[in-house]
């Protein structure tokens, strides 16, 4: 898989938040096989300097980071956060989130397109957290994005793919654009389903971090995503409404 000219082996992008401990986070990243992890920027806390320790841990993992603009509700906030992230994390990659609703955390697609246009013009390589809306997808590509990341379901909900039809349409509409399902995945089977639809990768966090055994769940997701990808390449059979016997009817005994 290629994302902004970078070849990536693993199709699982893993978030780094909500783990029971830094050691469990590190173990989960290793077990997931993920080559890209998402990170954020937050206020450095007083004397504790938690951010410095976290950054040291991530660097030791030897993975590429994808900083996000989580929590931003306007294009201006997201743009400023992206600029700050570029300096701290030394990458042009930005997972662009412009949140439009407190309850659903769904993207404000208008602010998203505005921020994507500005950031792309400023040299950023934007990974927009969007919906499955095709027109918004087109606007994001016009704005300079070369990856689209539609949600499966609201962030942290674990509901899987809320709109399979819409996601299938999106895959068909953008056959050459890397598409990553971002958010809402709760189970490996849901990740596999997205991969079977032809999605290029899955970005998730809570499903692993909140599992009883995060590292084991990370490994389970890695296997499911690989299986789903292989199934897509293997060209699944078409679905039928009626049964069709798999055992030959010809040659049945007269009993």
């Amino acid at each position, binding site marked *: 898989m290629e994302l902004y000219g970078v070849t990536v082996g693993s199709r699982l992008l893993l978030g*780094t*938040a909500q783990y029971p401990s830094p050691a469990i986070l590190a173990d989960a990243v290793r077990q997931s096989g993920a080559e890209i992890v998402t990170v954020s920027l937050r*206020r*450095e806390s007083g004397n504790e300097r*938690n951010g410095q320790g976290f950054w040291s841990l991530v660097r030791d993992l030897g993975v590429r980071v994808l900083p996000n603009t989580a929590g931003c509700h306007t294009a201006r906030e997201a743009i400023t956060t992206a600029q700050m992230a570029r*300096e*701290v994390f030394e990458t042009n990659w930005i997972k662009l989130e412009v949140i439009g609703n407190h309850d659903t955390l769904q993207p404000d697609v208008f602010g998203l397109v505005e921020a994507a246009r500005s950031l792309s013009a400023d040299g950023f390589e934007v990974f927009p957290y969007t919906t499955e809306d095709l027109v918004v997808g087109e606007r994001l590509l016009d704005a300079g994005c070369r990856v689209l990341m539609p949600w499966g379901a609201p962030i942290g909900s674990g509901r899987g793919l809320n709109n399979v039809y819409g996601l299938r349409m999106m895959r068909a509409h953008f056959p050459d654009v890397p598409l990553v399902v971002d958010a809402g995945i709760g189970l490996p089977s849901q990740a596999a389903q997205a991969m079977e639809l032809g999605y290029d990768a899955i970005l998730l966090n809570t499903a692993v971090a909140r599992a009883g055994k995060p590292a084991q769940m990370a490994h389970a997701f890695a296997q499911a995503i690989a299986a789903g990808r292989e199934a897509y390449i293997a060209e699944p059979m078409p679905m039928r409404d009626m049964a069709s016997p798999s055992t030959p009817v010809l040659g049945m005994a007269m009993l």
Partner: protein
Amino acid sequence: MKILVNSEERDIAGPTLATALDELGYTCAVIATALNGRFVPARRRAEVILRDGDQLELLAPMQGG
């Protein structure tokens, strides 16, 4: 002068953003700065003169999804 650092009032001598960061103990920290809502790149910190009432944001790497 008094400025707000991550919404907390701090008394600093200044005069620049760079000297304020030294004073606050962030000399070697991996942080990004924004002053009054605008990003200030590290290379410009020595040129930026602080004023009473300025709002400084100091952001560091953190866990994220």
